[in-house]
């Protein structure tokens, strides 16, 4: 559906006869196409702007290697800058703390918090040999607590017994007590989805955080998110404090620009990718893969072939 950045850039550079170093005007023309490609990949405009400035600086005056075209050269610089901005080294979820280690999951409605909670709990249980307790603080969405309970049964992970009528703060206290008394290593708190502009519910998140003192607070966000990604990530980070980001629905065919947006405005690492509805659909974040996706298939293939 989209013309690749490669196509567009070669269109631009076709008119240029000179080889050698990339001139400022060549780069400026190329940056217009890069801007467009990033916006089409759903990178938020403010992040596109600062990103382009960085790339422009690196590209101007750069010698074009003999084996590649100027367009490929620019794409390589864009790609490398993407990987660098996304965070070159994967950062796993950290469990190095006095047990029970609390992990709090936050995010907008329907982003994938409950599913990701169960996926992570399964992983901690199987790979890290931890004893995990999950608790749903979602007293709002119909059958939300039931959902986590069923996922717990599927994963073979304990869930805090549901007490009807209890509010999120009381559930939090009960979960922490149960985790302590039960000798759990990890206690996972699945919160109700909320809008970042919902004052009352954001205050509730802060209250839960202050009680649970989570070792990790993970923002669970949909990889298909558009320009709003910056508002969401910034607000959750400012209000609740986020230690990492989980991007879900990476199994879709979205371009995933939200990854760059969220990482850039919060500086917080993307820790994991949700890649399916089932409980094994969780993968370690690899910046290269996400960078490739933002750039688009056609571009990456040619980059790998030529560079």
């Amino acid at each position, binding site marked *: 559906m989209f013309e690749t950045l490669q196509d567009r850039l070669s269109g631009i550079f076709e008119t240029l006869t000179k080889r050698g170093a990339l001139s400022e005007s060549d780069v400026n023309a190329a940056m217009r196409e890069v801007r467009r490609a990033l916006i089409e990949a759903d990178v938020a405009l403010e992040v596109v702007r600062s990103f382009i400035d960085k790339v422009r600086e690196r590209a101007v005056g750069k010698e074009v290697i003999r084996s590649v075209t100027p367009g490929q050269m620019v794409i390589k610089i864009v790609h490398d800058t993407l990987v660098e901005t996304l965070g070159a080294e994967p950062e796993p979820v950290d469990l190095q703390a006095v047990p029970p280690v609390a992990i709090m999951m936050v995010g907008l409605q329907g982003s994938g918090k409950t599913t990701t909670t169960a996926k992570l709990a399964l992983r901690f249980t199987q790979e890290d040999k931890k004893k995990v307790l999950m608790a749903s603080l979602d007293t709002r969405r*119909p059958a939300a607590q039931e959902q986590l309970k069923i996922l717990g049964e599927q994963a073979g992970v304990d869930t805090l017994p549901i007490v009807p009528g209890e509010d999120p703060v009381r559930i939090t206290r009960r979960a922490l007590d149960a985790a302590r008394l039960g000798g759990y290593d990890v206690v996972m708190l699945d919160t109700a989805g909320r*809008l970042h502009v919902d004052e009352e519910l954001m205050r509730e998140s802060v209250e839960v955080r202050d009680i649970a003192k989570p070792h990790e607070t993970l923002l669970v966000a*949909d990889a*298909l998110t558009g320009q709003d990604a910056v508002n969401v990530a910034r607000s959750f980070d400012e209000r609740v404090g986020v230690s990492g980001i989980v991007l879900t629905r990476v199994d879709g065919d*979205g371009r995933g620009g939200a990854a760059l947006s969220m990482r850039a405005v919060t500086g917080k690492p993307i820790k994991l990718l949700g890649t399916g509805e089932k409980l094994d659909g969780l993968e370690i974040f690899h910046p290269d893969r996400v960078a490739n996706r933002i750039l688009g298939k056609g571009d990456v293939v040619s980059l790998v072939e030529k560079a």
Partner: protein
Amino acid sequence: SKSSRSLTGGIADIFTKRKLDDDTLQDLEDILIQADLGVDTAMRITEKVAAGRYDKEVSPEEVKSVLAEEVSAVLSPLATPLAVDEAHKPFVILTVGVNGSGKTTTIGKLAAQFSREGRSVMLAAGDTFRAAAVEQLKVWGERTGVPVVSRETGADASGLAFDALKQAREERRDVLIIDTAGRLQNKSDLMAELQKIVRVLKKQDETAPHAVLLVLDATTGQNAMNQVDIFQQTAGVTGLVMTKLDGTARGGILVAIADRFGLPIHAIGVGEGVDDLQPFEADAFARAIAGLE
């Protein structure tokens, strides 16, 4: 909200006693891009705003209202409430969309609306996959006093849909709304499952489903175009609902979608409560994109 305030501020700053020159138009285009219209649609609308006004002095208010008019012009012809055709008993509505977009909640809201209108409604818990999806719809059924046909999780969704239609016909229900599991449009096996549901419904009533609603999340960016494209091809989408417009996302991709697919836009979701479904109003939607409220 926060973003519309910043948009308003942005436009006011940009256009205070300025000529409508290239820079100004670029700024205007950026504002549309930040509302998720996408580059092409943003450029097209910006060109329309410029037509006949280029190089003239313009007030911020004027630019904003022209912008809103241009956006509204694209959307207005498509703003049509979901009409229940009483010739069909039941009128069968199939609800589809990607994971977590708001299908089940929208069904609950629609059930309430139709019941209020005095229609007898039945719901079918066609999401037989996700944990507690059936229970979730049952809660909505209780809330709205509407019966829910269901099977256990893991059962065949098309079989459930078939049974639900049979029961709704026997009970002479006015409306049957079928929930489906969320699915990403690039998963062909899951999309084939959706086609099977449609096929099975047609065995009893070849005109069914009478409406296929695609539920889109307003926070979704450019991928919503693919969603519409593929869900329309595989499930025969007849209309759109956009949810989560109570947040800061403007849902501008709907303008690009309107432009390309021309599908009716029925309603918007503005919250999680039973009454948080509103008819789609092109003017109000366009004014929010232009930062006029």
